[in-house]
């Protein structure tokens, strides 16, 4: 964060090289965790010990492997390492497939926001004047409204489902990108290289996308790293509330919700363990995002 730069700035001049990325400086633990989770999600059918949808009521509420005592629970040899849920489905397999859904939602929804928000922000920043005023007022309103309430409302009336969730979250997320890109464009457009490009007769779209956009990339990357985990949690929350993905989709939020119903009868693993999976995923992305923010953009974006 600003911390490091502020401290070092006082003692020694920051050389440009200091900000360059070195292999040794990368946040390896979170990168490795994230890569393994992505791999697990991609190769889910090969890795997961069971079909996540496979039900066996006789195997209901098998305990996770470290809680197996005597005849209670089922031996992990059967591959139910993290136990089973109320329908006898393997929890580990469901978490593995759930990671798939989370990652899918995270990346597709953020891509949608990016695709909508970036051009809008470019136009607002470049045209300025009235266009800018109208767009920014819309951005303000969108940002002021609680995303989850909008998403809940839309999904309640439109019906739920994975792709609807992705679309709604994606569309609602445009405003941050529009604001970010606009802000950067306002700074960039005053610089000499833009004036030169304009003087040379470069078409406006070309100026925007070829000349200005690359200068905004760092800020965008930081915003994406903040948004992906946020969106993943949003989907999980919507599904937890019963208005997200359909009940047959192995969503981590949905699994926690199902387990929650059995919490008071002593069956904790069906809700707690999927949450652990979700948290590790989000945590690793957030740690990576923190590092990105420190490295790429220590001044512009706080908090």
């Amino acid at each position, binding site marked *: *964060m*600003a*911390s*490091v730069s*502020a*401290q070092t*700035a*006082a003692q020694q001049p920051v050389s440009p090289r200091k900000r360059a990325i070195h292999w040794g400086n990368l946040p390896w633990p979170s990168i490795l965790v994230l890569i393994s989770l992505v791999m697990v999600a991609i190769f889910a059918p090969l890795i997961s010990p069971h079909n996540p949808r496979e039900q066996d009521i006789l195997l209901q509420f098998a305990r996770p492997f470290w809680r197996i005592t005597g005849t209670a629970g089922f031996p992990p040899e059967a591959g139910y390492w993290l136990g089973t849920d109320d329908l006898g489905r393997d929890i580990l397999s469901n978490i593995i497939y759930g990671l798939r859904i989370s990652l899918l939602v995270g990346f597709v929804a953020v891509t949608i926001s990016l695709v909508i928000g970036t051009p809008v922000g470019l136009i607002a920043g470049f045209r300025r004047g009235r266009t800018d005023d109208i767009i920014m007022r819309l951005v303000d*309103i969108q940002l*002021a*409204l*609680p*995303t*989850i*309430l909008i998403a*809940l*409302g*839309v999904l*309640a*009336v*439109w019906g739920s489902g994975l792709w609807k969730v992705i679309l709604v979250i994606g569309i609602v997320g445009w405003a941050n990108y529009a604001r970010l890109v606009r802000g950067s464009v306002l700074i960039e457009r005053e610089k000499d290289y833009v004036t030169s490009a304009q003087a040379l007769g470069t078409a406006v779209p070309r100026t925007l996308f070829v000349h200005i956009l690359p200068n905004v990339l760092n800020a965008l990357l930081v915003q994406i790293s903040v948004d992906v*985990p946020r969106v993943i*949690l949003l989907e*999980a*929350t919507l599904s*937890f*509330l*019963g*208005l997200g993905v359909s009940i047959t989709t192995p969503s981590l*939020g949905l699994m*926690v*919700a199902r*387990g*929650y119903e059995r*919490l*008071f009868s*002593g069956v*904790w693993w069906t*809700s*707690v363990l999927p*949450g652990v999976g*979700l*948290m590790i995923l*989000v*945590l690793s992305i*957030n*740690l990576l995002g*923190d590092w990105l923010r420190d490295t790429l953009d220590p001044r512009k974006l*706080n*908090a």
Partner: protein
Amino acid sequence: MSTFLIKRLFQAVLAVWIVVTLVFVLLQVAGNPIDVLAPDDMTQLQRQDLARSLGLDQPLHIQYGRFLTNLVQGDLGISYFSRQPAMGLVLERFPATLRLILVALAMALTLGIPLGVWAAVNAGGPLDSALRFMSVIGISAPTFWIGILFILVFSVQLEWLPSSGNASWQHYILPGFTLALYRIAFFTRMVRSSMLDVLSQDFVRTGRSKGLSERLVTYKHAFRNALVPVITIVGLQFGSLLSGAVVTETIFAWPGMNRLVLTAMYNLDYPIILSFAVIVALLFAGINLIVDVLYGLIDPRVRYG
């Protein structure tokens, strides 16, 4: 100051109108509540009667006009299900939600601000790193899952605290903390970076160089300035607290308005959803106004333009 306030008030009214209209339009796209309300064996004629009694047979612009007229009078119709005034139902549950949010906000501020200052004063040290890692965990933990963990540990296992309702002050601890956790982490990060920004500014150096104690510089001079961005963020956090309260109220069976509106969403109970939207929009507009004014009071450089 007064022109500023009038301008801001006008903007607030405009924002409320936009939000409310958007919700109205959204609900029209949503589908016919008669389909939800009417039993399957209802005849066509009975359905029409029902539609008429709820005013749903009128053309859209009439419905909208009537909606706006009633809105100004604070009347948003009768809940399709409980047959009571919708605004009344939502308002009745509003205090419970507000109390939960305020408790969570108080917890978040009393813990988050000192932790953030503490981290900033020790920037770069092991304490800073530890706090930083903990705050990343705090913002990464899904609220609903945290709530469940709390229930599991403190209600089911230890049986220390109640897990549903809001009858006594003990009932506030688990839901309040569940809702606060993310914000504690968030404020810690926020205050830390804000403090560090301020600590690197010239007036702090001046303060130090004229021999003021480090304590005075940090806690009196720097801290006050570091609070300015925090106020805006607190205002913005209100929206996120309200959203978070949806989850918290669901998990802890909290009798607040979010749980009411969630049920209304399942049931397409339009008047309730609209009343909720109006209240939320008013809250937001009001809070933004307060934040703007506070901003000016704390930082005299901000001019009311």
